[in-house]
């Protein structure tokens, strides 16, 4: 097994810790937005303007943090100290930055899309929708910036709570069931697994701050480490590792912007982000490698990858199919992290961003189709390419990104992941990636193919072009373009990702 | 329930008996309880408070705070019984009573037949007969009342030197009132000593007690630290101030105990409507 360079640790010691209130502002930008949102609630235009303003403000704050982070600095801000020596604290490093950038830029697009989706469908309680949307973004950034396990946990729970009203937005029996499943999974795992694991870590090591190389090394026995790792991997159920993925398809009852947000930006990504954080910051790659624990996680993740792809194949509801696709893709990321090689971890990190753009495009498309034609099922969408050509082209781009075909960003991250396998000395793990990529193709491409080259009962040769409203169309086009751009300009993503791997 | 009761009682009993083996002998003058605090009280009580009755001194001075609260316990009980039993609007409680009693009786009839019911009526009639005012009783009470009240006042006033004090005196006063209420009817007594007046007296009693304490506060000492009151009483030293204040305090206790126990009786015996006593 190849010895990883110790360079990373050295850099970590050199990194400058800088106190800055910027992370706080970035979180507050959306946390305080509900106040004007509620005040402007009666005037939809005003309300949406507030959302946009908050979105741009947030993005601006995040961007402002970019230069120092790229210089290798860590921005730190302590909120309060509930437990002596254990503050709720923000620490912004490369990894946080990458995630925060993705989340805050996609929030703006999602907001725009939400306008195009919610208004034509005349959804009720739109103000509440925007309010909780803003809250969940704050929680997401909080997770991204979390400097220790406690902070991570606090914002993780806040995210669960603030997305619940979004998931159950329709307030009907279906939403109720989905919402119940959503909370049951997320609360049971976080309270039942993460909390005790976290406390155990704290009691064993007396520390919780994420550090390069982790803080558990040498403090716990191998058995304890294994149990803890499993508790974390399963405990962050937002990552959808089987068998704790059940909430995700259930949560599909939500309005599409929410699904997009859940799947591409906030919730699931927070899950994998947490696992990445724990693997790198709590255990440390070296420690895991020493104990040879990566393999266990690899198998769990690999199993999820294959299984979910197979399930996705059998789904007729477009959103459900995409949901299972997401479950698979998330486990890609975890699989990458479990390889414990720099290359693969970098790839995992990048895949968060790449997949975000790809998957959000797909969801936007699904929503756009629903807005324009009220169709939910794939079997009803045969020939839809004639009616909505732009949407379906974007869908194609999204699919390619998810599969990892050029010229989309997905290719680059997937390549890293793929190469990470031999890098860690377990080349046969590549099999998982290869098989699942094929499966991805099998469940995504036929949709596009049939949309353009076949005629169905709803859309025949004579169908006229009638796209979804502009507010729907523009965001999805933008995200599709984003996916392509990421293929040509992946530098920023990788710079941040390598900062994480080396510095963190 | 019986077995649970028996078991828990046996459990406590056995525990307590185990502990008794460890006790100092009964009446041992040198047991810890008899040789630590009590020695101080016995030796210094007269010097410090000028009250020969140690119980009164400890009650009204050393542990005066306890006593104040104890007085308010009586007050709480009075108010509590009033709050529970008393029907202000006269509908809610009385209405349900009648309805439920009727229901209860009809059930009883079905079960036990008519005979029982007739006997009940006879008993009730006999009771009604017995409840009529009786000349002999009334005259006796008339004769007794002044003595009872005088004795009660003596008990309160002489609590420093002999057994007695505010509590005992207050209870005797209340007993006197209750005696009157029983022989002359509750309405008649309430006409003399109305409910409102006794409530006010009850308040007044505790307020006298607490007021003495607050006065000490205002004069710059701790709560209920009577010695500063020497500044108020004419021609007394600090020790006598304690003695005098104890008397004041005992009078307060007497007020409250008397009026509250009387009220409790009034409410309990008339079922909360204060109309007809026993």
């Amino acid at each position, binding site marked *: 097994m190849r010895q990883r360079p110790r360079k990373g640790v050295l850099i970590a010691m050199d990194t400058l810790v800088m106190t800055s209130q910027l992370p706080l502002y970035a979180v507050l930008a959306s946390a305080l937005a509900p106040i004007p949102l509620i005040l402007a609630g009666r005037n939809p235009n005003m309300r949406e303007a507030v959302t946009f303003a908050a979105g741009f403000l947030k993005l601006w704050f995040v961007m402002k943090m970019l230069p120092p982070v790229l210089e290798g600095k860590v921005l730190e801000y302590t909120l309060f100290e509930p437990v002596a020596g254990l503050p709720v604290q923000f620490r912004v490093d490369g990894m946080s930055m990458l995630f925060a950038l993705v989340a805050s830029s996609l929030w703006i697009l999602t907001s725009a899309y939400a306008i195009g989706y919610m208004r034509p469908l005349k959804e009720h309680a739109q103000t509440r929708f925007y309010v909780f949307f803003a809250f969940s973004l704050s929680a997401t950034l909080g997770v991204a910036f979390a400097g220790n396990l406690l902070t991570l946990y606090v914002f993780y729970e806040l995210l669960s709570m603030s997305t619940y009203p979004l998931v159950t937005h329709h307030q009907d029996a279906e939403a109720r069931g989905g919402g119940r499943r959503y909370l049951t999974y997320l609360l049971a795992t976080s309270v039942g697994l993460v909390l005790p694991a976290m406390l155990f870590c704290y009691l064993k090591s007396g520390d919780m701050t994420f550090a390069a190389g982790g803080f558990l090394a040498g403090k716990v026995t191998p058995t304890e480490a294994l149990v803890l790792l499993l508790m974390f991997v399963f405990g962050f159920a937002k990552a959808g590792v089987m068998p704790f993925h059940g909430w995700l398809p259930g949560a599909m009852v939500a309005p599409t912007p929410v699904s997009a947000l859940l799947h591409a930006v906030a919730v699931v990504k927070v899950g994998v982000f947490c696992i990445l954080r724990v693997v790198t910051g709590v255990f440390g790659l070296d420690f895991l490698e020493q104990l040879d624990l990566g393999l266990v996680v690899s198998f769990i993740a690999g199993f999820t990858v294959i299984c979910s792809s197979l399930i996705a194949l059998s789904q007729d509801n477009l959103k459900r199919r995409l949901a299972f696709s997401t479950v698979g893709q998330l486990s890609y990321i975890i699989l990458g992290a479990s390889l414990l090689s720099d290359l693969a971890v970098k790839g995992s990190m990048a895949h968060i961003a790449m997949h975000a753009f790809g998957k959000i495009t797909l969801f936007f498309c699904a929503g756009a189709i629903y807005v324009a034609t009220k169709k939910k099922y794939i079997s009803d969408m045969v020939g839809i390419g004639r009616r909505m050509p732009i949407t379906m082209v974007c869908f194609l781009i999204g699919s390619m990104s998810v599969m990892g075909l050029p010229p989309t960003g997905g290719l680059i991250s997937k390549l890293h992941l793929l190469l990470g396998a031999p890098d860690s000395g377990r080349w046969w793990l590549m099999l998982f990636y290869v098989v699942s990529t094929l499966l991805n193709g099998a469940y995504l491409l036929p949709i596009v193919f049939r949309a353009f080259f076949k005629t169905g009962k709803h859309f025949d040769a004579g169908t006229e072009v009638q796209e979804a409203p502009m507010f729907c169309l523009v965001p999805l086009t933008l995200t599709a373009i984003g996916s392509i751009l990421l293929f040509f300009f992946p530098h920023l993503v990788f710079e941040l990702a390598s900062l994480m791997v080396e510095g963190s | 329930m019986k077995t649970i009761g028996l078991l828990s009682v046996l459990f406590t009993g056995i525990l307590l008996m185990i502990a008794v083996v460890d006790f100092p002998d009964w009446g041992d003058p040198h047991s810890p309880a008899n040789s630590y605090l009590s020695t101080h009280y016995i030796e210094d009580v007269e010097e410090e408070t000028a009250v020969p009755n140690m119980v009164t001194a400890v009650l009204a001075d050393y542990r005066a705070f306890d006593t104040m609260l104890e007085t308010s316990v009586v007050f709480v009980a009075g108010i509590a019984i009033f709050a529970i039993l008393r029907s202000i609007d006269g509908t809610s409680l009385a209405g349900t009573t009648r309805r439920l009693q009727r229901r209860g009786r009809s059930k009883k009839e079905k079960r036990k037949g008519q005979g029982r019911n007739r006997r009940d009526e006879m008993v009730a009639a006999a009771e009604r007969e017995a409840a009529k005012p009786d000349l002999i009783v009334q005259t006796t009470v008339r004769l007794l009342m002044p003595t009872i009240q005088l004795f009660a006042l003596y008990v309160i006033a002489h609590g420093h030197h002999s*057994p007695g004090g505010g509590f005992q005196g207050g209870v005797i006063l209340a*007993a006197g009132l209750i005696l009157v209420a029983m022989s002359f009817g509750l309405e008649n007594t309430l006409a003399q000593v109305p409910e409102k007046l006794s409530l006010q007296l009850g308040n007044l009693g505790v307020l006298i007690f607490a007021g003495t304490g607050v006065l000490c506060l205002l004069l710059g000492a701790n709560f209920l630290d009577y010695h500063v009151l020497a500044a108020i009483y004419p021609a007394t030293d600090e020790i006598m101030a304690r003695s005098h204040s104890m008397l004041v305090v005992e009078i307060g206790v007497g007020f409250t105990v008397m009026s509250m126990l009387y009220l409790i009786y009034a409410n309990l015996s008339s079922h909360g409507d204060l109309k007809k006593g026993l």
Partner: protein
Amino acid sequence: MIWQFDLIILVFLVITSLIALRVRDLMSAAMILGVYSFLMCLLWAEMGAVDVAFTEAAVGAGLSTVFLVATILRTTRRSSD
């Protein structure tokens, strides 16, 4: 403090308490409880606790009994056990 005297009262206390709980007529039970309280008061006086005995005589044997009687007259006289 005369322990023989003490012992006799104690025995009577136990007996009265048992009777008070056994009697089915509540009025009699209340009366017997009055006797119990009075015996208790005697016992305390004999132990030198005059103030307590005084209070118990007035409160326990006097007022408590009156309250009990009042309640019994307002509810029912019979008890099933």
